[in-house]
């Protein structure tokens, strides 16, 4: 797999806004960002309303995903280019989600909305209508999704990569520093996890660092390339970004994203939790 298979540059995107068979999709942390101006022709997916089950804590099922993509006018053979704010956190989450349901051709816009805006590229508020399709999804590809029991079993066996900030990893903070700190679950991290904050993989403008730099960052952090890997964060979106780096850019074969992440693990009874930087011993 090469970078060109999974990433497009802002320049490529601007040249291909009207290319048939290419659909731009905005997925944001701030779900109102799209309405204030979006890439011309892009449709919106709301990571919360469209991708989460409204009752249970889980994803929409296969039929729900088929209905969503059909309504957005996305066909099975379209190339979907995902982009969003906050360094593509939720666009990467959607990328992983599209892969989970078996979409063939999906790419991330390198740098997302930030790079696009810093470049001064066009945004508009036009309402985008695409004719509905008959989208067919696959069963979830569970080779890329980890559940809690697997995570507990992975302690001491697989690479566990905690991609949150150092203060969240140590237990000092329960959420990123731009969010209120009101969650009630325990702080800390899964024992044996290494801490490689997602942001290490991104340049200041939101684009991904080079493969050489990325390989060095994970190597220095102690990722054992001969072992399977599970990545997690707080709710599974930042770890999608790191999953993308490990699985799609660096080509590690067995990498799963634990979408339950710390909001699930840190609320479980009876599981081991470690505090501190994890570097003392």
């Amino acid at each position: 797999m090469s970078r060109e298979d999974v990433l497009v540059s802002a320049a490529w995107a601007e040249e291909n806004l009207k290319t048939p068979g290419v659909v731009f999709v905005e997925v944001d942390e701030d779900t109102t960002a799209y309405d204030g101006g979006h890439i011309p022709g892009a449709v919106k997916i709301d990571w919360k309303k469209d991708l989460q089950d409204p009752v249970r804590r889980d994803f929409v099922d296969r039929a729900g995903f088929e209905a969503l993509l059909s309504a957005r006018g996305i066909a099975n053979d379209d190339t979907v280019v995902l982009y969003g704010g906050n360094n593509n956190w939720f666009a990467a989450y959607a990328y992983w989600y599209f892969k989970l349901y078996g979409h063939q051709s999906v790419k991330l816009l390198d740098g997302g909305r930030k790079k696009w805006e810093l470049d001064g590229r066009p945004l508009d508020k036009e309402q985008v209508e695409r004719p509905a399709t008959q989208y067919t999804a696959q069963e979830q590809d569970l080779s890329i999704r980890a559940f809690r029991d697997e995570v507990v079993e992975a302690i001491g066996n697989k690479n566990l990569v905690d991609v949150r900030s150092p203060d969240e990893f140590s237990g000092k903070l329960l959420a990123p520093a731009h969010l209120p700190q009101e969650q009630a679950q325990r702080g800390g991290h899964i024992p044996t996890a290494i801490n490689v904050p997602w942001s290490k993989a991104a340049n200041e403008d939101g684009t991904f660092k080079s493969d050489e730099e990325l390989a060095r960052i994970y190597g220095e952090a102690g990722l054992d390339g001969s072992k399977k890997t599970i990545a997690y964060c707080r709710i599974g979106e930042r770890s999608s970004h790191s999953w993308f780096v490990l699985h799609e850019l660096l080509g590690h074969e067995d990498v799963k994203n634990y979408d339950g992440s710390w909001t699930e693990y840190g609320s479980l009874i009876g599981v081991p939790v470690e505090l501190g930087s994890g570097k003392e011993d």
Partner: protein
Amino acid sequence: MSLDGCGAPQQGVDLAVGPDEVVLTGRVSAGGQPVGGAFVRLLDAAGEFTAEVVSSPEGDFRFYAAPGTWTVRALHRSGNGQASVSADGPGVHPVEVAVA
């Protein structure tokens, strides 16, 4: 804000500060005029990225941090800039960032 909510609260809106919260807040400006839509990054004392928000139309931003010394760096298509702030304990710590 719900448990699963990851959306940053609207920047520039008054919000009660909890007794233990360390809040860093301020405005991005250029030539004395507020700059909205800037990407405002919070870096820790070692220069490591910690968080990022987009400034409000009035240039306002806010971070929930921990005690320590922080750098606030703003990126905008009109230019970049940064400022440092020391938070010795809970409360609101102001910091202004000029971009050029």
